[in-house]
């Protein structure tokens, strides 16, 4: 069970087997040196009644210092090599984890809470590191010390050893009964901390919404409750731990008491020398650390194992959207025509089909507008084009190739996709715009800035294009974010441009201007745009109206008006509303 969880991580350690071997050898030397010190003291104490000379005493001191030096050096060795290695293992795992995150697809991320993922990538990873470094060290250290101490004690006085060790089985009871329970409770605490993290994360991300709806107090209340529960759960652990630690000292103390009592009698009865008695007590004292160490290691294992399980869950998640054996690597570019062939689609968890039997051919260079009410499937349809979600084989063709045959990087290099709520990074405006392409000239950047209608906004920013924008670009308005995202995609000079309700935050006038610019810029580029504003789409080459996952109407603006169906009806309503807005101003 434990081994199974550790197994995937062994390969990370294997990489550093040389360092780890050095570390273990150093550890063994350190233990050896540590064990010889009580023995040396025994010799001293036994020698003392024989009136040793000053030179003898100096000799003992010298030997002791020599041993101590060896011990110090070996301790340096194992710290450097075992702890250092555990940091390196952590480094490797976190790099690997990050690469793995990069490979997972949108549907997976939608099911996760970012706070939880963060907690796994930080807190859990730390637990794994401690397990690998500290846990491994203690395991070796404890085994060596327990075995040698008990061995030496038996050598000095077997019967005394047996009596003195009587309390020790109590330790095993403590370990097997208490520690698993502590582990379980600890895991509960960790999980709860991850909840708190999520709550903070959600609060901070949505701070504007929370304030807009005056939900601060409610959120504080929720946070307060989470924290109170957290205290409670922590104290649950403490109650057990509070018994556990003193019980360890008690057990060790009892052993020392017995040794003093029974050993004292043995010395009085001349069954052993005073020196042996001192050494015996020394070894007994040395045993107390590994006794606690066992507790420590069990604890570390519990935590580490739970953490490994949680991290492994991420590693086991696999994206279905990857290049595989069906990928034709020779496809390096493609034309801009798109064909949906009997395509049906649903987000994995829902049974309901979001798109049903879509048949649609978009010739290269066409500007296609997709309209429909919220939830009709517009966005689902266009999100399939950059392969954000997976579709059945041979149901979607880009440039004549089935989308699953096109290498992912080639596909995405040639498709520009602008979201309704685009994500911008905490970087300068320029860095955000040239995000998808390296080594672009300033002229090109200026050009896309102009075409996206950002020029006027730039004057308003203190440092123009070099203005650093806050996380998620929140110091920009929704419309500005959308235009930066547009510039970012235009810069790629894609074959296909997908605008997924990309101008929802712009006023009609600006949207009109931008569309005019794009039209000029995108001649020859297939453009698929989703919009709610029908006045904006009427100049498109072709309009389709989606309803309930199916294409209901298909044609130019004039054709659809003539058809006098749903499109015509909605268009008239919207036109009327616009007119009224103007009168009302």
């Amino acid at each position, binding site marked *: 069970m434990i081994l199974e969880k550790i197994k995937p991580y062994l390969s990370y350690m294997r990489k550093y087997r040389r360092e780890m071997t050095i570390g273990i050898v150093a550890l063994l030397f350190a233990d050896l040196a540590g064990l010889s010190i009580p023995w040396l003291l025994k010799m001293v104490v036994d020698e003392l009644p024989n009136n040793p000379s000053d030179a003898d005493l100096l000799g003992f001191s010298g030997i002791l210092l020599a041993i101590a030096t060896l011990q110090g050096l070996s301790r340096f060795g194992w710290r450097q090599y075992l702890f250092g290695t555990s940091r390196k293992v952590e480094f490797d795992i976190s790099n690997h984890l990050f690469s793995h995150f990069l490979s997972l697809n949108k549907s997976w991320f939608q099911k996760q809470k970012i706070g939880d993922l963060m907690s796994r990538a930080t807190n859990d990873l730390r637990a794994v590191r401690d397990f690998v470094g500290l846990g491994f060290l203690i395991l070796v250290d404890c085994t060596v010390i327990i075995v040698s101490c008990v061995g030496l004690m038996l050598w000095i006085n077997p019967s005394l050893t047996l009596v003195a060790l009587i309390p020790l089985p109590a330790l095993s009871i403590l370990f097997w009964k208490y520690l698993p329970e502590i582990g379980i409770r600890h895991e509960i605490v960790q999980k709860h901390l991850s909840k708190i993290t999520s709550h903070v994360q959600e609060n901070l991300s949505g701070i504007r919404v929370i304030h807009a709806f005056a939900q601060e107090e409610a959120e504080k209340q929720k946070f307060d409750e989470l924290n109170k529960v957290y205290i409670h759960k*922590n104290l649950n652990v403490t109650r057990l731990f509070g018994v556990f630690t003193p019980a360890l000292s008690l057990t060790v103390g009892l052993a020392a008491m017995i040794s003093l009592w029974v050993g004292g009698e043995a010395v009085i009865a001349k069954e052993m020398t005073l020196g042996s008695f001192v050494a015996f007590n020394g070894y007994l004292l040395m045993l107390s650390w590994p006794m606690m160490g066992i507790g420590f290691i069990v604890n570390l294992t519990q935590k580490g194992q739970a953490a490994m399980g949680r991290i492994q869950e991420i590693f086991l998640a696999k994206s279905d959207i990857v290049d595989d054996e069906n990928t034709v690597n020779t496809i390096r570019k493609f034309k801009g025509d798109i064909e949906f062939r009997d395509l049906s689609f649903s987000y994995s968890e829902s049974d309901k089909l979001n798109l049903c039997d879509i048949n649609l051919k978009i010739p290269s260079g066409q500007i296609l507008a997709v309209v429909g009410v919220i939830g009709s499937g517009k966005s689902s349809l266009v999100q399939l084009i950059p392969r954000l979600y997976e579709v059945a084989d041979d149901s979607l063709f880009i440039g004549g190739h089935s989308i699953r045959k096109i290498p992912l990087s080639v596909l995405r290099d040639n498709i520009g996709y602008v979201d309704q709520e685009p994500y911008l990074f905490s970087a300068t405006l320029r860095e955000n715009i040239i995000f998808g392409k390296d080594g672009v000239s300033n002229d090109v950047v200026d050009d896309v800035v102009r075409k996206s209608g950002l020029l006027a906004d730039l004057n308003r920013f203190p440092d123009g294009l070099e203005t650093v924008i806050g996380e998620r670009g929140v110091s920009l308005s929704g419309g500005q974010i959308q235009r930066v995202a547009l510039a970012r995609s235009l810069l790629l000079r894609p074959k296909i441009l997908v605008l997924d309700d990309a101008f929802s935050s712009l006023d009609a006038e600006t949207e009109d201007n931008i569309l005019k610019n794009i039209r000029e810029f995108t001649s020859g580029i297939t453009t698929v745009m989703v919009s709610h504003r029908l006045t904006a789409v009427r100049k498109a080459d072709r309009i389709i109206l989606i309803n309930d996952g199916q294409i209901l109407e298909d044609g130019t603006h004039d054709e659809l008006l003539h058809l006098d169906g749903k499109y015509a009806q909605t268009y008239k309503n919207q036109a009327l509303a616009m007119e009224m807005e103007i009168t009302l101003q």
Partner: protein
Amino acid sequence: MSELHQESLTDRYRDWVLLKRLVVYLKPYRTLVLLAVFFLFCVSILSLSGPYLTKIAIDDYIAVSNLEGLNQIALIYLVVLGVAFICQFVQTYLMQYIGQKVMYDLRTETFAHMHRMSFKFFDNNPIGKLITRVVNDVEVLNEMLTSGLILVFSDLFILVGIFSMMFYLEWKMALVVCLVFPLLYLATWAYRVRARDALRKNRAHITRLNSFLEENLSGMSTVQIFNKENSHENKFRDTNKDKIDEDLRSVYYNAIYLPSIDFFSALGIALVIWYGGGKFVQDQIQLGVLVAFLQYLQKFFEPIRDLAEKFNIIQTAIASAERTFELLDTPEDIVDSHSSQPMKRFRGEVEFQNVWFYYKKGEYVINMRRESGDHLLVDRLTYNFRKPNRGEIIVFETKNITGIQNDLFYIKRLAGLPNEKIRIGDDRHLVINDKRLDASDHPFELLYSFDVAEEIPLAQDSRFSGHVNQKVFQQVLDERRKTVARQNGVDPSRIQMSYAGNISPNFIDGSHEFQIPQNRYLALGDNTVSSKDSRDWGSLPAKNIFGKASFIYWPFLGQKHRTRPNRFGWAFQ
């Protein structure tokens, strides 16, 4: 960029100051803290009694073959162990309890503080970093309070106790052992400086790494669509490399310092053997004293080693405390509108209802929406000498007013003063403390100059239409719906008003009374059928008032595409 934006590596707070501040959080629990310290003291004393009992056993009983006395000592030992067990349990539980409580207080405070920050603050501070503050840093502080700080007390007790015992047993030998301490001090000092530096840098890198991770997790599909996987992987690796370098530096310092303590311990033992052995040979000390010394010396270096291990915890905690307090100390208001240079006449460029305002700490960079706004002069002088009067046109910030975007400037007419009761009558007149305002009240002459007899008009310039409550607004709306329907030849019910219906939740109808709280004002727009004002979002705090609007200086000519008339030169009355 605010100070917080860049992870600062400099000492912003002295350790001592930080410690004092942390102690403040312990104050509410001082009885418990005292109790915990008391129990700690007991545990320490009891743990010191072992070697002393051993010494008595050896010198007084074993050496003279006194079996009875030995039994007695064993019994005392047993009692000591039992008491120590109980004390240790109580102390552990108490400390955890206090730690959890303090952590709870700190977390609640940080969280609440975060909610009071302006949005600008969140623009300048990545979420990942703030999460670390509220969750992880506070957690580390708890670790410091429980296992760190208070255990230092116990370790100090033990150190002092051992010192006293050694001097009590044999002061000359104790002095000899003291030779080790200058070395110990030097080593500790050298370690402290370096380890601290490494640890701080490490923390800064961790924060950077976490922010980057958080951003990437949130914006993953953007990263993927733009094929940025490889470059971001490299960037992560580089940051991670910076972090591990500091990590390894810390490990290295520990690897040198901690074994050196063991070496000093051995040095102490060697000194005892050499000096104490000699004295024993000369019959100047007893064997039991020698053994007790050896045991005490072993125990003596345990707390020192402990202190060093805890030093890491404490260093981490100090860094965490620093950042937590830094966050708590970040003022809630980034710019105080009345602060800098109140005597200077401020030339603000304010758009009608919307101003774009970008600020860094302490400086103004004002920009505006050229395409749609009127620009006006704001008098920031007058209100330094007197309070605003009713009817004056004021410009105010929307900061901290719930229900509207918080980083704008609004311009409205001041309608209600603090503590007043106010109604909007169905006849479109304000009623203040039961007194109805009309056209004879300056400066409401124009505002109340509308013709009541006329059927509710589609006022092109709605400056002259009084004040409208929700009920009247509804009537206006219905009227307009009918008009539009008539013009378009459709049934009125088919017309959807895109215009929001709930303009005045605070004044439902003529009988609805609004009590203005202390230090707050009520502001209403003159364009009363479409203004988003106090009728919607309530009163505004006095400190939000930016100044008195004087006159529009831009644009000279009317604007194209605008339905509004040219208003150049309009003075606000």
